[in-house]
Every structure is written in C-alpha cells, then in structure tokens.
C-alpha cells in the first residue's frame, strides 16, 4: 500500500532530521504543494466511489499524523537548540555595581514636602511668608510685649531699615489670619533667624513649619488630634504625644509638645537623653489678642497654633548630629540625599 509505505518512509526521515532546516525540508517533501501526501491525494479520483471514502479517511489520518509529528519534532529540536545555547552562554557577573545618575534634594526639601502633603491631606492650605519682616508682624502682631527680651539686639537680627530677619514663622500669622478672616486651616513653612552663636546644636538660620487652625469651637483635644495624626503619619506608626506647660506670648494656654522617642519607643536612649520623649513643637491655643490684632472676633472664633522645630525633625529623621551641616553646602553630605518623593 502506497499509504503505508509513505508513512514508514516519513517516520524514518523525520527521525533523521537533525535540525530545524532539515525538518522543514521533510515538511515540504510530504506536506508541500507538490509533496508526497498531495501526490497521494491526486490518486483518489482513480478509485471507485465506495473506496474513495475509505482512502480519503486514510490520507487525512496520515496528514494529521505527519503534521503532529513535525510539530513535536520541531518543539523537541527548538528545546535542544536553546539548551545548546545556554551551555555556551557567557556568565555575567550579575553582582557588579551600577551607578544611578542622580542629583540630590536638600534633606529639608524632602521632609518638608512629606509633612506638607500630610497636612494638605488633612485639609490644610500651604501658605508662604517672608524672611524679612516688619517689627509689627514679627513681634507686635503676635503679642510679644514691647520690652520683651526677644526684641533685643542679642536675640534678633535687626536690619538697617528697622525691619528684622523673622525670628519665627509666627510672623506670618497676622497676614494669614487677615487673608481668611475666619475659619482656616493653614501651614506655613519658613526660614527663621536668631542672633546667636552657631555650634553643633545651634544655628542662626533654621526652618520651622507653623500651623494655624481657626474655627468657632476648637479645643486642646483638637490640637492633640492633629499633632498626633501628623507625627503618626510621618513616622508610619502610632506615636504618643504629651503636652507640658510652655509659655509663648502668642498662645494661651501654651504647651511644649513632646513625642514619644521614635528610636527607643519611650524606653529611654541617647537621642531622647534617656527621658523617653523628644521635645518637638511649641504650640497652644491662639491668644485672643493675636486674633483681635488681625481683626478677628475672639469671642466668636478661637484656634490653635503650633511651630514645628523642623530642623530638629530633619536631624532626627536622618540621624544627623550637627545642625550646621544643613546650611553648609557641603556636597559630600548633600549628595547622599538622592531624589525621593
């Protein structure tokens, strides 16, 4: 039988195909337009009607068998090919270092953006202030008495035109209170200046982030809420805070806010001087005089204010022990702060 013969012939030839091109030759020889199977097919017209059906089925079976076998062999050869390639593959030292070209952001910028985003998420606006301020905005408007020592030359950088380099972000309070003239939630980061000698823990130029919230009914409990939320969000864990009495002319009552030390979880360590707490933020309920001076009815409205010691937070966050590094422009230090938002 022709069919049986073709089948046997194919089987031996396909076994002998050593690579994909030989296999393709076999495919063309049997399945091509002028291939053996097509050729066999042409004999169908010579057969009797009843034989035609059987013959047709046999040819189709042969064709399927050949197609399957070729596909199988193809997969087998491809697999062998890849294995051969892998054997000759050159090994790369995948542990070699790569250098990522990147500039750096100042560590303050990185953390400031993070904190701003947290407050924006809680509905606070972000405002801007000046660095050179009037005596009125810096002192009078925030209820600092006329003869207060903070106004002395030893503490404040006075300028030749009787303005000052702002000593606290609170200098922007009056302007912001006037801008909203009622309920508001705002933070205003800024650079502040104090006329003092510089050492590893004191700077004459430093950053604060101040916040203000004014509404009809605001309590100490609300202040605790926002400070706790902000710190917990920043440190990505629940942070305990505590308030202690503190005196600042622009708030009444005034507090020092401590956060439980994030390094030792309050057990006491070198960073928190073994107290378990970090002093982070003077804050308090806005002094009615500050509201009055901004034209706000202090009987109707009240609020809280806080002044986050931002540079201290930066130092804590990055384990920095010398505040002078921040303004130094020392690129060996700064280049470590690769872009991150």
């Amino acid at each position, binding site marked *: 039988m022709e069919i049986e013969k073709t089948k046997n012939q194919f089987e031996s030839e396909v076994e002998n195909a050593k690579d994909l091109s030989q296999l393709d030759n076999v495919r063309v020889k049997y399945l091509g337009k002028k291939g053996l199977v097509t050729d066999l097919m042409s004999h169908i017209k010579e057969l009797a009607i009843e034989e035609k059906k059987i013959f047709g089925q046999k040819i189709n079976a042969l064709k399927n068998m050949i197609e399957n076998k070729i596909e199988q062999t193809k997969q087998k050869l491809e697999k062998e090919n890849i294995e051969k390639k892998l054997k000759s593959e050159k090994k790369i030292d995948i542990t070699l270092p790569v250098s990522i070209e*990147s*500039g750096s*952001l*100042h560590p*303050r*910028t990185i953390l400031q*953006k993070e904190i*701003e985003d947290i407050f*924006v998420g809680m*509905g*606070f*606006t*972000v405002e*801007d202030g*000046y*660095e*050179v301020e009037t005596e009125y905005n810096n002192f009078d408007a925030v209820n600092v008495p006329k*003869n207060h020592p903070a106004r*002395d*030359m*030893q503490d404040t*950088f*006075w*300028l*030749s*035109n*009787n*303005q000052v*380099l702002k000593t606290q972000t609170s200098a922007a309070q009056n302007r912001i209170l006037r801008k909203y003239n009622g*309920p508001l*939630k705002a933070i205003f980061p800024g*650079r502040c*200046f104090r*006329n003092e*000698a510089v050492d590893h823990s004191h700077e004459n*130029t430093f950053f604060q982030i101040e916040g203000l919230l004014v509404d009809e009914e*605001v*309590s*100490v*409990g*609300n202040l*605790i*809420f926002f400070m706790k939320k902000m710190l917990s969000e920043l440190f990505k864990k629940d942070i305990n805070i*505590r*308030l*202690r*009495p503190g*005196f600042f002319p622009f708030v*009444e*009552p*005034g507090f020092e806010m401590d956060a439980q030390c994030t390094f030792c979880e309050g057990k006491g360590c070198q960073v928190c001087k073994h107290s378990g707490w970090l002093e982070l933020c003077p804050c308090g*309920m806005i*002094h009615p005089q500050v509201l009055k001076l901004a034209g706000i009815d202090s009987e109707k409205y009240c609020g809280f204010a806080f002044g986050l010691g931002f540079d201290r937070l930066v130092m804590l966050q990055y384990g920095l022990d010398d505040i002078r590094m921040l*303004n130094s*422009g*020392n*690129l*060996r230090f*700064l280049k470590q702060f690769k*872009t991150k938002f």
Partner: protein
Amino acid sequence: MYISLNWIKEYVNLDGIDEDELIKRFLLSTAEIEDVIYKGQDVQGVIFAKITSVESHPNSQKLHILNVFDGKENVQVVCGAPNVRVGMITAFAPIKSTVGGHKISKAKLAGVESFGMCCSENELGIGSDDNGIMDIKEDVKLGASLKEYYPIDDTIIEIDNKSLTNRPDLWGHYGIAREFSTIFKRKLKPISVFETEKYKNLNKLNIKIEDEGCLRYSAISVKNIFSHNSPQWLKIRLCYTGMRDINLLADLTNYLMLELGQPMHAFDNEKVKGIVVKKASDNLTMLTLEGEQHKLSKDALVICDSQENPVAIAGIKGGLLSSISENTTSLLLESACFDPTCIRKTSANIGLKTDASIRYEKSLDPEMTTLAIKRLLKLLNDIEPNMEITSALTDVYKKQYSKNTIKFNRQFLQKRIGVELENNKIEEILKYLGFEITIKGDEFTVIPPSFRATKDISIKEDIVEEIARMYGYDNIPSMSLLGEIKPTSIDYVHDKEYKTKFILSQKYNLNEVHSYIWNYKDFNEEYGINSPSYLSLLDTTNSGQSGIRSELAPTLLKMFFENKNNFNNISIYEIGRAIIGIDENNLGIEKRKLAIVLASQEKSKKDLYFSLKKMLLDVCQTILNVKVDFVENKSQNYLNPINSCEIISGNKILGKMGILHPMITSKLDKRFNVAVLEVDFDMLCNGENLESKLEKITKYQTVSLDFNFNVPHSKSYAEIEILLNNFNSKLKCNYSLSDIYIDEKNDKQYWTFNFNIYSLDRTLTSEDIDKFSSKLTSYMSENGIELKK
C-alpha cells in the same frame, strides 16, 4: 533652679506619694525638669565624735595624731586639718563608712595607722567650708549619725529656668510647694513669721524713692547680732540648691530668696544712714560685693544713702563699702520690688546677671516685700534670740500691681479644653492656686492672687491653662474636628518651587543646596564679585556678615569654592530669598530667586552654557508654561561680557545667565569652567505664558527633507530662525537644526536643517516636493544664505 524636696515638704505634706510620681506630675503640670539629684547617698555611717587628744605626728609637720571618742571608745585617727583641738566635736567617718562615695578603710599615714577620718563640711558635701574639719557647736549625742541631726538625705530637682520665665511665683520654694499642693490636693502650710506690729511706734527709717523704677521699698533695722556662722541645716539647704554659704546674714537673705523668691539685701546699719532710690548720676562707678568695679549708665537704678553715696545697684548687687562684715552687729534689711525692664536693661548693660536680677526681670509680686522681712526676722530670731528691732518696719509702696477680675463660665472652659468639668473641681483647683472665687450657677468671677497677677494671669484664657494643666493634659482625649470641607490650596509659587527642584535634581542631576541669606562682602571683594546689598545688619557678631544678599549666585559661587577640591564637576542650585531693593515705604523688596552654578573641569564653557539654557527652558516649558527669551547684554557684572545674556519674559527682565567672568574664574580656580544662572523665581512663575495649541495631525504621509546651508559666521541661529519662520509655503512644514559642520580649512560652516513637509488633505507628489525645495532654496538665497554646493 534647684529645688529641695525636703524644703517643699516643710510646706506641703506629700507623704505616701512616690517620688517618681511627684516629679512626673510636676513636669506635666508646671515646668520642665532637667535633672533629679539624690543627695546624701554618698555619705553613709558618718557620726559625731569628740577629739580627746591631739599629738603631733613624728614624721609630718602638717599631720596630727588624734584620739576621737565615738561614744563608746577612743579611736586613733591621723588628721591633716589645722583646726584640731581637744574637746572639739566633729564629724567622724569610721572604718566601713562612706564619704563622697568612697568607702573608708584602715590606712597608714606617714607611718602611723589611722582608723577612720575626720571630715570637713565640704568633704561631706553639706557646706562650703574646707579650711578644716567640722567644728560642731550644737548639743549632739556622740556616736549618733549626722543624718539624725542634719537633713543630709534629700532629693533635688533641677528645673529649667526657661520654663519659668512667665512665672515669677515659682522662683522660690514656697511657690513650687503651692504647685505640688494643687497637683496633689494637699494643703499648703502658712509661712511662719516674726510679728513686727508691736514695733510700729519705733522710728521709721528714712526711705525715699525718687524714680518709678522702684515699685516698693521695705526695710527694717535690727541690732545685737553676734552670730556669724549659719547653722548646719541652713548651710545644707543653700549648698544643695546651688549657693555658697558665706555668713549668717548673707545666708539668711539668700535663704529667703530661695524660699519666697524675694531678693533681699542686708546692709551694715552703721555704714548706711537712710535710703534713696534713684537713677545713677553720670559715669558712676560702683564697687560691688565681689570687689568688681561696674560703670553704670544714666538709666541704671541705684540705692544711695542719705549722703548720696551709692550703696547698691538696685535689684542686682550690693556695694562693698556698705556690706556686712565680721564686725557687723546691727543691720538694715532691704526687701524691695523693682521694675523688671529697668533691672533687665541695667543687668545687660553692665553684663552682670545675678540671682536677684533674674528674679526681678520676671515681674516679682510687690506684695511679698514685707512678708519676706518678717520671715527673715523669724529665722534670725530663732538663731539669735537676743536680736533687737531698732526701727519700725518702714514701707514705701509707690506702685501697686493692677488687680483684675476675670469672668468666665464652665461651658467656656469645657469647649476650650475639650473635656467635661464640674464646678467644684474648677473651684478646688483655683482655690489651691490662691484665687479668690465667686460662683453663681456656672458663672465664675475670680481674682488672681498678687503673685500671679503681675504678668501671668489677666484673661479668661489664662484660667483655661490653670484648669487644664491641673486637670492633666494627658487626661484630655484626642478629638477630630469637623469644619467646612473645601479644596485646599497651595501657594502657587511654593508649589512650583518643589516641581522645579524635582526636575533639576532628578532630570538634570543637580544638587540642591541651602545657603545663608548673608551677602559675603569679604568673599565677593576678594574674588571680584560685584553684588549689591540693600539692607545691613545692625549686629554682626554672630553672623560675621554685614548685610543681606540681593543675589544667590555669589553665595553659590562661594559654595562652589568650598567644594571645589573634592569634585571635578559641581552642579548646584538653590531657590531662596534675596532682598533686591528697598521700596518707597523703606521696606525690603524680597524675592524668591533661582540660581544655578555649573562648574566643570571636563565640560566646555559652551556645553555648560547650553546645559543651563536647557534646564531653564525645560522648567519654563514643563513646569511653568512660561515663554522666555534671551537678550545679549554686555554689562552683567560678574558674567563674561561676551558670552552672557539677560533672561526676559514679555517686556520684563527676569535674570541673567552666562559664563562666569574670566577674571573671577581665574581667581576662584582656573581649572574649572563655570556657568551661572540667576533668575527672579517669583517673576518667572508669573511670566508671559507660552502659546500652545494642538497641531492637526495629517492622515497623509510626511516627507522628510534635509537642506544643507552655507551660513556666514556673522549670522546667529536666531536670525536664521526668523528667516525660516517667515518662509511662506502652501504646504505645512516644520523644521529643526540637525547638524552644524565646520569646514575649518575653508573657514566655512554648514548647517543642516531637517524639514518635515506634509499636507492635511492629500498625499504629496514629487512635483510638490520639488516645488517646495526650489522655493525654499531661492528664498534663502535672496536672503544671502546659499545651499551647499
């Protein structure tokens, strides 16, 4: 300030309360505690003993061999103190006792065995005398522990003075005791005093107050004081709270200051006749107790006697000539109150801060002066029962404190604090704190006590603090706040600042720096950088600088200079403030500025310049949507006059950009090429907007054509750009400069422009393309630009 808990417990019974709890509650309710010191732990087993024999030491001139009787037996001790004598009772540390943390053991001194040690007060840490061993005059039991007689064991808390600036009442133990009494709801005991009422008919002292800087001056005179040494308990109190004991009268005045917060002064009554308080005369110099000369200015307040001789700098320091001495037996006791600002200014002027002056600066309670005198007399009388009062208690009270009444209700306190309160709770706290209170329903009317009224408490918000801190801040629950919900806004320029920083640091690999606001005059002068400063600093001691910068670039050049030895390439920027002038109201004009400095030992000036240009245009395009142009300008002080330009938007000059002036580069470091950009960031953010609209995209094929023009050296790209932009074609086209080839041999340059041409409604034919080419070629030729042959 150091606070002795023994002293506090004299005024408030704190039995049954753990010391850690005492300290924690005080910290949360009153003031910051810096340290807790446990006194007396380093002294154990020291007893009273009597010296029964004194013999000289065979091998030493200084040492003596003593026998001391400890109540049971005689013990041999070798002692180096000069004041040993038979019959003297002293402090004896036998073997196995502890002094100053050291265990006492048997020792051989210069060959003689010693079974213990006789101690001085100083060695025991209970007094300042270190001239000899203790010479105890009190009637004590030999062999008894010193601790049975003297309050050697004590806990001292150190309070941060800064947390007491607004609390004049806390500058003495009695005020602190009142806080403890309120915190723990324990009764505050009254101060026991010496009644002076019966001496009111004696002659009054002659006191005149000639200046309003003195609010009140109270005094009394006393005689028959023969004791000069303070009793041991008094010395211990002073020693533990950071003072040196000097002599009885000085010690008592110091004691009173530490107890009530009232500074006092004792004059030798023989040396001071009458008191006049007045401003200092011109160029007055004063010799103070320590023997220092102080030159006083005219606004300093001084105490003079009736002959106008200055006897003290008011509220700061007594004078040497009128001071008590060993021969003093009669004294004039001063207890006064002065204006805080006046004292603070004088203290700052003469550079003398004393325990008295720091208290007066806080606005002391003027009601306290006479009480302090009566208290001191009580202590003095206990020690010196023969003392005799020789004048009436004389009191000149010039200026009363302003008594005010504060009204509030319970609901107000509740809202502000955020907790439910009961009326009797509020009342209880305020009563403990010394307020006078009237309650009608929920309405409170209170009068703060004098010691809180001078500075600290005047409005109802002050009451919020009193109630909240005593209620305990840690008992206030955290509470969210529901206000109106509205979109938050971020200051426009502030937001753009971040985005600009982000692109410069991440896309262009620049390093952000923060520099100071100073104008570095010396640096600028040394390196020939000319940058004006419009505001100067009145005090330059701490910054070392004289003025405020008007530009950032010079500061960045300084930073480049400080970093240049560590890097071959430095690319830094800052967005910061500068004062660019003074406005008509004499206020500084403050601007946010962006400055970039690129310095490289590897890259060419041209590369650096174009990096700057690219960064700026990228920021303008992707962040700000602002159109900027560049105009040549040869007078950009620190920039190279040939290769620099002004940056403009619309008709406004925003800044400048260019290669650093070669003169400056050569001084800074000639290995580097440096390019500098400085732009007003506020103006840049608000510059003229770019015109941007979407282009229609053709459905038909776009044809790309290259044209290679021979461009004369005299032409700039900007000129060619204008030419090309004015070329009129029916077809749509856009172009870009793809290559510049410089043929040095023939001194020619060829610029290749790549054109994309297309039509919105059909496919271009070769005829269209040929037509375009010849039209462009002839147009350029008409304008003096030929195609490359």
